[in-house]
């Protein structure tokens, strides 16, 4: 099999058993890799009703056919499991150097099941695989853990670790890699922590077979050349993802003060340009990436100076403007705190902003916060709350269940302003003035995340007040963008620098030897999308339209100020968006895939299982 290492590594932590399984052609042909493998194993191996933090959950760490191969940015690893944040299928991807290293060690995916009795880490050195004690690492920060393991094992090992937040099963705990990159979303760190698995260390020395080496060289060379000649490349290398902050503000989409507003008066203090001038000390790239969007920064606070990768846009939006911090250095410091504790910065920013607004409204007081003056703009409050959350101490124990969990504890008024869908906190685009983006958040399979369908530019192009006709674009994006997560390649070269999709379509046959057209690949992506939806439908009898609904703030409150002041989206608008979306997908009016849709996509077994359960018709 070309483009793949050919093996799945299965690790049963309860039994202490390690085994290799052949990668089957059927799996590759139907699910490609990355998140596709994740969806397949999570659907087929996690029993309905399983506790996301119990031994029955699976943690699937998977690369894809483009990872570790000579082409731009084959750097992405997808990590999937039943999410403790949503109780549904979840995944998150991370760049760096893990994906290629796994393949060089002869592994396309690791499936972790069970739970070790003592803190452990997984050691992989080509074919030598061991479950080793991690008692000396338990309790340590994620960055510190990586340092210690690199010192013990050697710098060439690629490491993925959790911090204290993962150990304590915070539902938005992330998995860290390469000192500053995270599989941030959906609480994958909590799943890893619940298995008592502190880290994975991998080194490989094998090659990846490629079907047509000359063909690969020729397509990849064109791709690299086009990237190097792109006028935007230098800006990317200079500013990284932080450049988006001022633009998001200018179009009134920058989350501000817990998404109450979408325009931040102090945005200049958070800009990418200021970041470059004041705190950036170096650039960092993932495997084979000429864009090098990672920015190493120095930041000081409370007498401590730290080196941190970031902040990129999402962190700046959610921790910066959303918590009303005023300087990019403050955001960078908070970014470091989250990385070391192992907290997803997107969810952490949401959770702290939520606390700040509840504090401002009197829903909670200093008695609840344990004396913390949780006011917007306070980096002290951010850091103190982050530490409490990661250790589940005091108010942190409530907040460790995310804004959805906390709002259950704090009542109706707070749930109106708990900004999430399905239990996953909303990422960096306030969307009252961008209906297709709103729909993308509502229907994203993992909860309120932007990366499946970033369609705000579509709203700008066709009209921000237009509702009808927008669902088709969202569906289209939801098939194209996740393909990159299946391939194991970064999508920024296409999305941001416009590298044509035809290049990726040409890469697939030369790498894998399979003759799928781009359209065939899109059908596979649609299959995966429907499988993750089917997981939700099987999981909960009452799963449906209400789970695709946004928080009340977005349809009850018009935009209060800024360029879109007075703009609003109504419940009727939201229903229109969903009606069109469900129809475009071949789902019923309650958002459940119709049997005929599942059958068309080759998911006959899934259709029959759900039909027998009475979940679909």
């Amino acid at each position, binding site marked *: 099999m070309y483009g793949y290492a050919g093996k799945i590594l299965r690790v049963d932590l309860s039994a202490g058993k390690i085994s290799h399984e052949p990668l089957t052609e059927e799996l590759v042909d139907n699910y490609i890799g990355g998140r596709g493998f994740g969806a397949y194993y999570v659907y087929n191996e996690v029993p309905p009703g399983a506790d996301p933090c119990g031994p029955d959950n699976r943690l699937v760490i998977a690369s894809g056919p483009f990872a570790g191969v000579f082409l731009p940015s084959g750097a992405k690893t997808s990590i999937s499991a039943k999410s403790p944040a949503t109780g549904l299928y979840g995944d998150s991807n991370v760049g760096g150097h893990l994906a290629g290293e796994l393949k060089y060690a002869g592994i396309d995916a690791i499936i972790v099941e069970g739970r070790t009795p003592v803190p452990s880490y997984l050691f992989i050195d080509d074919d030598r695989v061991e479950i080793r004690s991690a008692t000396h690492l338990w309790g340590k920060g994620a960055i510190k853990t990586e340092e210690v393991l690199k010192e013990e094992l050697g710098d060439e090992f690629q490491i993925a670790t959790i911090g204290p937040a993962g150990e304590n099963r915070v539902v938005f705990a992330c998995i860290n890699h390469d000192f500053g990159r995270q599989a941030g979303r959906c609480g994958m760190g909590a799943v890893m922590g619940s298995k008592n698995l502190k880290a994975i260390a991998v080194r490989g020395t094998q090659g990846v077979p490629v079907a047509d080496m000359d063909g690969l060289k020729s397509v990849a060379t064109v791709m690299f050349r086009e990237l190097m000649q792109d006028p*935007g490349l230098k800006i990317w290398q200079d500013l990284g993802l932080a450049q988006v902050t001022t*633009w998001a503000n200018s179009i009134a989409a920058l989350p501000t003060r817990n998404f109450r507003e979408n325009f931040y008066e102090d945005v200049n203090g958070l800009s990418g340009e200021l970041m470059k001038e004041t705190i950036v000390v170096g650039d960092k790239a993932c495997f084979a990436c000429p864009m090098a969007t990672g920015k190493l920064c120095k930041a000081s606070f409370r007498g401590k100076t730290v080196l941190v990768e970031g902040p990129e*846009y999402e962190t700046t939006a959610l921790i910066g403007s959303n918590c009303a911090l005023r300087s990019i250095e403050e955001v960078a410091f908070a970014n470091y705190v989250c990385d070391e504790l192992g907290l997803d910065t997107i969810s952490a920013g949401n959770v702290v902003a939520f606390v700040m607004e509840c504090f401002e409204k009197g829903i909670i007081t200093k008695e609840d916060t344990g004396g913390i003056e949780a006011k917007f703009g306070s980096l002290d409050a951010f850091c103190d709350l982050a530490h409490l959350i990661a250790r589940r101490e005091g108010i942190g124990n409530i907040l460790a269940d995310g804004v959805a969990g906390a709002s259950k504890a704090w009542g109706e008024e707070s749930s109106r302003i708990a900004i999430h869908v399905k239990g996953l906190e909303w990422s960096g685009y306030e969307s009252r003035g961008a209906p297709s983006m709103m729909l993308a958040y509502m229907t994203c399979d993992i909860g309120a995340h932007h990366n499946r369908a970033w369609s705000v530019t579509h709203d700008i192009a066709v009209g921000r007040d237009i509702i009808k006709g927008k669902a088709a674009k969202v569906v289209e994006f939801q098939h194209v963008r996740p393909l990159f997560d299946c391939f194991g390649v970064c999508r920024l070269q296409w999305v941001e620098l416009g590298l*044509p999709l035809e290049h990726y379509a040409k890469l697939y046959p030369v790498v894998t030897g399979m003759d799928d057209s781009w359209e065939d690949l899109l059908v596979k992506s649609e299959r995966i999308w429907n499988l993750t939806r089917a997981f939700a439908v099987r999981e909960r009898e009452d799963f449906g339209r209400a789970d695709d609904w946004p928080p009340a703030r977005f349809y009850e409150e018009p935009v209060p100020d800024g360029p879109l002041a007075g703009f609003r989206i109504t419940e009727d608008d939201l229903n229109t968006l969903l009606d069109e979306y469900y129809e475009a997908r071949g789902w019923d009016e309650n958002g459940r895939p119709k049997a005929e849709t599942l059958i068309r996509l080759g998911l006959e077994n899934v259709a029959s299982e759900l039909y027998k359960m009475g979940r679909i018709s």
Partner: protein
Amino acid sequence: MRVTLRFGRALREIYDHLGESMEVRLKEGATAKEALAAANLPEGACGLLLTDDRLCKIDEEVTHGQIITVLPPVSGG
């Protein structure tokens, strides 16, 4: 005066009417924002503007013969 706008590929994917570049006619003293409007681009359609290898501000005055590269807004992932 005349100003040339060059469009990044990702922007051309969103706006069908854009080719690789476009020359727009503007009054003396016009800004980059007016140049974009002359190319029929709605507000918020563009991310960054580059000229002579430096960032060009949206409200900056442009000059005859200037070449501005227009990049799309970035998605951040």
